[in-house]
């Protein structure tokens, strides 16, 4: 590949082919190895490298939640949850920490005697359901592994008694007759007397005022009559001593 001179006519648009091209001799153009690149060509390749487009400035995009369609399983579980909430008057949320199967079995058996059923639902589905329903404020109860005790009649006393023998089950909260209750609330609710007693107490308190009115009106005359009676009694006692007293005075005078 000695240096050669070529005199050829070239159109100006295609660019000028230099009339003399000095090429060092050595290997052919097509080699099995990568040929050493001329320094100027290296520079050219470095200048003409690909520059990707810059990503747009990330501005704060408002967090619009994409409405993800529920899978069929999730929809099914949600329906179950809804049915449970509708049918049951009492829903107790309990946190279970590593309960063994036989313990769970015992618990179920004992609760079954009082018609309380034990339900398990995934927390995510539960939270999704609660955010749409009226029991929104129950959401913070469902953290960690939770169990639900549901029943048609409120039987908190029995539930509390049973839970005493299961120290790993922690009572978190309850919803009885659409009222949320914390742990202390549940305890005080269970200590309440039965309904009839409470009703009687309320009635007694209401009728107290009206029953006192007549006694209040009669207080003055009663007081007066009591005083007069006392005076009479004293007169009777002092009578003989008083008679002698004034008589003696008369005789002296």
């Amino acid at each position: 590949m000695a240096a050669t001179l070529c005199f050829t006519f070239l159109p100006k648009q295609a660019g000028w082919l230099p009339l003399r091209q000095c090429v060092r001799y050595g290997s052919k153009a097509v080699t099995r190895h990568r040929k050493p690149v001329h320094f100027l060509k290296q520079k050219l390749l470095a200048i003409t490298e690909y520059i990707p487009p810059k990503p747009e400035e990330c501005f704060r995009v408002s967090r619009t939640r994409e409405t993800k369609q529920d899978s069929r399983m999730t929809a099914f579980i949600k329906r179950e949850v809804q049915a449970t909430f509708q049918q049951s008057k009492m829903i107790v949320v309990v946190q279970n920490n590593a309960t063994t199967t036989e313990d769970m079995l015992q618990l179920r058996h004992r609760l079954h005697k009082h018609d309380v059923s034990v339900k398990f639902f995934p927390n995510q589905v539960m939270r999704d359901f609660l955010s749409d329903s009226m029991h929104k404020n129950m959401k913070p109860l469902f953290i960690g592994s939770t169990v639900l005790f549901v029943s048609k009649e409120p039987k908190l006393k029995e539930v509390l008694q049973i839970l005493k023998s299961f120290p790993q089950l922690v009572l978190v909260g309850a919803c009885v007759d659409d009222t949320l209750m914390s742990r202390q609330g549940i305890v005080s609710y269970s200590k309440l007397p039965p309904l009839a007693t409470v009703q009687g107490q309320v009635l007694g308190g209401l009728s107290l005022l009206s029953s006192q009115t007549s006694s209040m009106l009669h207080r003055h005359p009663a007081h007066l009559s009591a005083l007069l009676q006392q005076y009479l009694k004293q007169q009777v006692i002092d009578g003989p001593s008083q008679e002698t007293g004034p008589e003696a005075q008369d005789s002296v005078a």
Partner: protein
Amino acid sequence: MIPLLKSAVCGLSSRAVGCGGVLQNYATMLTSGLKTYSPLPDYSGVVIPERTKLKFMDKVPTLKKVRREMKRLKDIVGPEQRENGFTSGQYGIVAMGGGYLHWGHMEMMRLTINRRIDPRITYALWRINAPYKPITSKGLGKRMGGGKGAVDHYVTPVRCGRLLVELGGHCELGEVKGLLTEVAKKLPFPAKVVSRESLAEMQQAAAARELNNQNPWTFSRIATANMLGIRKVLSPVDLRHHGRYTGKFHLPERV
């Protein structure tokens, strides 16, 4: 006797049912979820030819007269302009560099593919010719001179972008990918396993890259205008291929 037994059995069963409500799922407390299956692929339009296996390639072409030819290394250089698309298959091997395929390579491809495909549901076809280019060799230990050597063997030249083998039938890419990568690794140039979609994607990506390049200075712009007399160190081949090919190699980073 029998009524007693019956009543006993009934009692047992009722008791079992009664307890079942409590015993039911004490072990499995939470279900894992429903698996949704995607629909099966539709192979209704796929026609499987009669001869599904790769044909045997001759080592030497049948010629009356054996002629020695010049090297013509340009048959390796640059991109393949014609045989770079799919014809009837779905998956294939595409060359990512230039080179010569000889009979040994073709045997390897033929045997591996024929052994591994199920001929009833998959078919393979060649996209390259049998070796036709004669390569001469002077023999070991001979001195320079004394004319051109004798024809030693024949090869098939392959340019970058050429399809070598196509596969099709009632199969998915995942099934044939392993087999084709095995074959592709043994070829004398870098090769890739592609499907129709992935090849189109590659070509589109390359075109998009060229369009969205933010660098105002491109190889072709500088070379065609011969800026700074750079054509002193470039060849006309570089201009034609815009600096993306050097010799038989393809430079995928160049745009």
